[in-house]
């Protein structure tokens, strides 16, 4: 049975307007030509290194971009355009975001009340109790303040803010930083559970290994571009991967040889023309500096001129 598409993003662009010296304005493109889709019950991970602008993807979908950012492209939610008016109605109900860090919790509001958005009726209270026992959080935690929680507890509390609703789409922004291996893994498993319950889950993370353990599909994000969109199985061996960067990532995983390549991703302001990975790529040639198509290869997508 074909699963229904929950979220589809087509050619999304996000750029910042920045003031340079004096009054000169400059557009800084942070996300370029990003396309992805999330189906019901599917967990998709967008993996990219820090500072590649992937958090803005979540903010863009939720309609909470800062005032100096602008977004282009198309976002479809359950087949229909997700307009600003529509996201206002849906966010916090059908579409939920799980934030990055404790700073996204109000420091002066008790955890329980905060999860219920200040409205604690009997139904919500009951649901909250269920969620807490599911995540093995003590009932007393409801009466605590965010600063009293440990890192792992904070994580579970933030996932609870999503669970208290009936989400069809969950967008998690960096759900595992600062957590030790075990806590990070269990956090990811909680998202997996949400997907298994039928929601579409979009995880934005820098941790490829962790993503590979739980997600169904992985998008590789590099300097604002999506270089590859691959099934998790494709990561079993190097040959099924499509893009040289993804292959390099694969080889950097300890059990696959722990090899690294030199260089860092280019900063938005000095982006090379054509493929952003070209300066670090061993197969770089003349045609890599021209227009690079994003095309379908073996059931996945790749932004590269070579056929792997």
């Amino acid at each position, binding site marked *: 049975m074909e699963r229904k598409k929950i979220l589809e993003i087509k050619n999304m662009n996000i750029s910042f307007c920045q003031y340079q010296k004096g009054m000169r304005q400059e557009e800084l493109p942070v996300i370029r030509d990003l396309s992805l889709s999330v189906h019901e019950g599917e967990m998709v991970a967008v993996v990219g290194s820090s500072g590649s602008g992937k958090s803005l993807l979540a903010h863009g979908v*939720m309609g*909470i971009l800062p005032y100096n950012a602008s977004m282009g492209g198309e976002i479809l939610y359950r087949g229909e355009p997700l307009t600003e008016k529509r996201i*206002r*109605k*849906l*966010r*916090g*109900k059908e579409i*939920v*975001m799980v*934030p*990055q*860090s404790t*700073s*996204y*919790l*109000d*420091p*002066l*509001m008790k955890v329980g009340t905060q999860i219920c*958005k*200040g409205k604690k009726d009997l139904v919500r209270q009951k649901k909250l109790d269920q969620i807490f026992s599911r995540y093995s959080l003590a009932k007393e935690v409801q009466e605590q*303040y965010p*600063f*009293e929680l440990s890192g792992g507890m904070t994580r579970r509390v933030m996932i609870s*803010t999503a669970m208290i609703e009936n989400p069809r789409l969950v967008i998690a922004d960096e759900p595992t930083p600062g957590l030790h291996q075990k806590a990070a893994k269990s956090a990811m498993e909680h998202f997996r559970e949400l997907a298994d319950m039928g929601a579409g889950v979009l995880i934005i993370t820098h941790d490829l290994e962790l993503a590979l353990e739980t997600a169904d599909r992985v998008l590789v994000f590099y300097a604002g571009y999506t270089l590859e969109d691959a099934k998790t199985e494709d990561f079993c061996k190097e040959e099924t991967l499509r893009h040289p960067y993804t292959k390099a990532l694969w080889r950097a995983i300890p059990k696959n040889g722990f090899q690294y390549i030199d260089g860092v991703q280019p900063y938005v302001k000095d982006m090379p023309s054509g493929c952003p990975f070209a300066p670090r790529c061993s197969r770089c040639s003349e045609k890599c500096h021209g227009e690079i198509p994003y095309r379908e290869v073996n059931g996945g997508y790749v932004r590269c001129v070579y056929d792997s």
Partner: protein
Amino acid sequence: MKTAKFITKQMIKMFLLLLAVSIVAFALMTASPVDPLQANVGQTALGSMSPEQIQKLEEYWGVGQPPVQRYMAWLKDFIRGDMGVSLLYRQDVTKVIAVKLANSLFLMIIAWVMSGLLGFILGALAGMNRGKLIDKVVRGYCLLISSTPAFWIAMLFLIIFGVWLKILPIGLSVPIGVEASGVTFLDRVYHAILPAFTLSITGISNIAMHTREKMIDICESDYMLFAKARGESTWEIFKNHGFRNVLAPAMTLQFASISEIFGGSVLVEQVFSYPGLGQAAVSAGLGSDMPLLMAITMISALLVFGGNLIANLLYGVIDPRIRRGGAVR
């Protein structure tokens, strides 16, 4: 244990502060060129007096005694609770102050509550709606008021409401030509309206501007963004998060602003001839009434210190991070 330590520390602080304030106030008065005899008796009267009479007066005003000796004598009495006799009013300083303080407190409390409430509301509104019309109006008002001297505004109101419109009295705290027993509470309120209003108006701008800054910080925080992402309406966001987070700093500000209200009251009372503590302070200073001025100085220092202390304590009560975190300052 912690509380006991905190209280002891605050008491020592207060004691040292009062001591320092009294020394400075006394030194300033001693250094002032005001000649008490000339100021209070008058040049002409002084000229027609015999040397014996002048000497008697000099003794009364303490002229010629070494300052250190005078200060020590004052301090000894003050510690025993005796604030001396006012040289100008020829009454116990305690009595004079009781009357003046009651008048001033009436005025200051109205102004303090009004400026606090209005300042908070305006500041929060402006902060939540940064850059919009309401923000511009509030900011414009605040900048205008805070760059205008309080006494000038007082005079302006006096002209408008007292002289042109004639709806409010031009001064004093009670009606003229009425016996003390015949003065009603309403009379007092009626006379306090203009000075209290002036004081509030000038107090608002400070509170509003600070609250606005704080509110803007809060609005830029991650938790406000998350609240928006969770579909909370602007009102819910304010009610659930904005208000909660701006309250503690606003309260601190409110109690710390006692000093400003006090300072403002000196000028405003002067303009409205309102017989309060501020006016008494001015006449005591100009008339070299050492005991009265010292007492007023001490009381105002206490009031301001008390305000700041309450602000500190309140922070601990409101903010759970301090209350539960055990980080008692």
